[in-house]
């Protein structure tokens, strides 16, 4: 039994009686202390996965099928009271924009103490002690002064450290980080990522890292999920996905990295854009942008094929595997 198990998760947004499936058949699992990366373009549904795990999809969205098992407990069936005990306590989340995530009218300390008091019976003085200690853990200099400052008095990188400290307050078993470095300076990004990685390792915390940045994923995570138009199209061990991507979309993402191009040359981009949820093409959702399109691609949705340690939803990969098998049989 894995620590976190997501089975066939489906999230539907009912817009003017027109149901849009933001997520379909999402399944993955995560062990304690394991780190998973979720990558994909904007609008692929990465953040929806995060909110679905916490059962925080806001209306008109709804989890319409599937289950999220945390330590064997189905989170999508818990009452809102029981769910509140999980949020911030067992599972914490870090958001993209540190400028916006802290409440501008309260001091850092107020916000940390409030979080502690919401989950534990604890005196204010003790709560403050824990808060200072956590601020030390995220390497905030002179935490005793910082704790009485307001968010606007701190820099972006500092704020993101504080947000990580808040996430760590209750010693969660899982942290979901939704693009934690996107809003930061490039020079700070690496520092914050390094800190997050270090803290997850030393506290044995599982991490779900949602990002655009394949470089970060390859550095931090052990497993990777690639999403496209609300579905998983490829998942497996990170090093296999980065070094030997099977799905044309994943290959496209990797080829689009600036490191893949010589200076002065144009970047390789995937042509076209992600379809909107309202008009997802039949068959493989990626087919209008794919360079290796087959006839079946426009008709049938590909099933997962095992390829090495990865499972890939692509007709081409399947055809190649079948051909290999056929050859094996022939030989």
């Amino acid at each position, binding site marked *: 039994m894995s620590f976190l198990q997501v089975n066939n998760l489906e999230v539907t947004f009912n817009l003017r009686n027109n149901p849009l499936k933001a997520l379909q058949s999402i399944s993955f699992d995560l062990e304690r202390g394991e780190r998973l990366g979720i990558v994909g373009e904007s609008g692929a549904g990465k953040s929806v996965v995060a909110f679905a795990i916490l059962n*925080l999809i806001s209306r008109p969205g709804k989890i319409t099928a599937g289950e999220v098992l945390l330590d064997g407990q189905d989170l999508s069936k818990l009452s809102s009271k029981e769910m*509140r005990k999980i949020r*911030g306590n067992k599972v914490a*989340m870090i*958001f993209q924009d540190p400028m*916006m995530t802290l*409440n501008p009218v309260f001091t850092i300390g107020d916000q940390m103490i409030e979080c502690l008091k919401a989950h534990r019976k604890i005196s204010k003085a003790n709560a403050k002690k824990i808060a200072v200690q956590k601020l030390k853990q995220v390497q905030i200099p002179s935490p005793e002064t910082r704790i009485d400052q307001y968010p606007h008095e701190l820099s972006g990188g500092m704020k993101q450290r504080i*947000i990580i400290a*808040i996430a760590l307050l209750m010693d969660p078993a899982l942290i979901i980080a939704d693009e934690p470095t996107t809003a930061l300076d490039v020079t700070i990004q690496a520092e914050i990522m390094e800190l997050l990685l270090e803290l997850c390792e030393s506290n044995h915390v599982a991490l779900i890292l949602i990002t655009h940045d394949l470089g970060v994923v390859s550095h931090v995570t052990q497993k990777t999920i690639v999403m496209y138009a609300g579905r998983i199209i490829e998942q497996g061990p990170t090093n296999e996905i980065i070094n030997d991507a099977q799905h044309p979309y994943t290959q496209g993402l990797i080829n689009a990295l600036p490191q893949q191009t010589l200076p002065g040359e144009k970047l390789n981009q995937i042509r076209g854009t992600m379809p909107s949820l309202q008009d997802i093409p039949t068959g493989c959702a990626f087919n209008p942008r794919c360079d290796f399109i087959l006839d079946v691609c426009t008709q049938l949705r590909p099933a997962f094929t095992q390829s090495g340690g990865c499972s890939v939803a692509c007709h081409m990969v399947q055809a190649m595997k079948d051909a290999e098998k056929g050859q094996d049989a022939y030989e």
Partner: protein
Amino acid sequence: MSQNTIATLLKMPNLWQRLKRSHLIHSFKKDKVAIASFTILMLFVGAAILAPLLAPFDPYDPSTIDIMDSELPPVWQEESEGKFLLGTDAQGRDLLSTMLYGMRTSLLIGICAVLLQCFLGVVVGLCAGYFGGRIDSFLMRIADIQLSFSTLMVAIVVLAVFQASFGAELYSKLALIMLILVIGIAEWPQYARTIRASVLAEKHKEYVDAARVMGFRNSRIMLHHILPNTLSPLLVISTVQIANAIISEASLSFLGLGMPVSQPSLGSLIASGFEYIFSGSWWISAIPGIVLVVLVMVINLLGDWLRDALNPKLYKD
């Protein structure tokens, strides 16, 4: 700067020191109109609070009133008596004392009515903005209906019906509470709309998501996280609303539906002197009238300053 001062600066400043260094106080000190308005308002409020100590006579005590003293002019006019500084009204009450007590009533009604408006409006506006959907439509339609009746019309109907059905005597006892209730209930949609608009803007900010992710209750998020962030429009509209409430009370009293003559407010004083204006006793209406105008004006000027001071887009320095 010595090391000691740096150390004290770095230390957590207490609330008063923080307030002293804040932008609000800074902009207040630079705005002469605001300082003047605030001074006048404080003088008025102080005079109203200290009315029993300051007033030379007690207008509520019939034994001190002599009908022979009626309609005496202020001291700078002929035929005046020295002990009545601003003259007397038609019943022989000292105008200065009556005005001090009247300002008390007017301010009390203004502030209490606004507190009531604020409470109703904030509860409705927060719920409507935060929960959205059907609750929002329902609450805001009620607000629209309430807004489509003018305050004076609602007040006149309610107060007239009350006076007619329960008699003037009971009314004169309950007039203060009735006025607070009527003005408070008639004007809450102003607050509800302002708060709802701010809540709609705030609720999609990430700190609200973060609060939900931390497992806080809806009520806690609404009251403790969103509400403090909507305080500046609330403060600005409150100043306007206090001025409005004082005016509404004065208008109602002027129409004979407000405070009874025995417990005068500024409005009912103006009304009581109105009959005597053409017989030459102008001061009974004019002096309380001027006080009312100045009171409302300084509150509005303070509101203007507050609106500019709390708007970060207007920071000048």
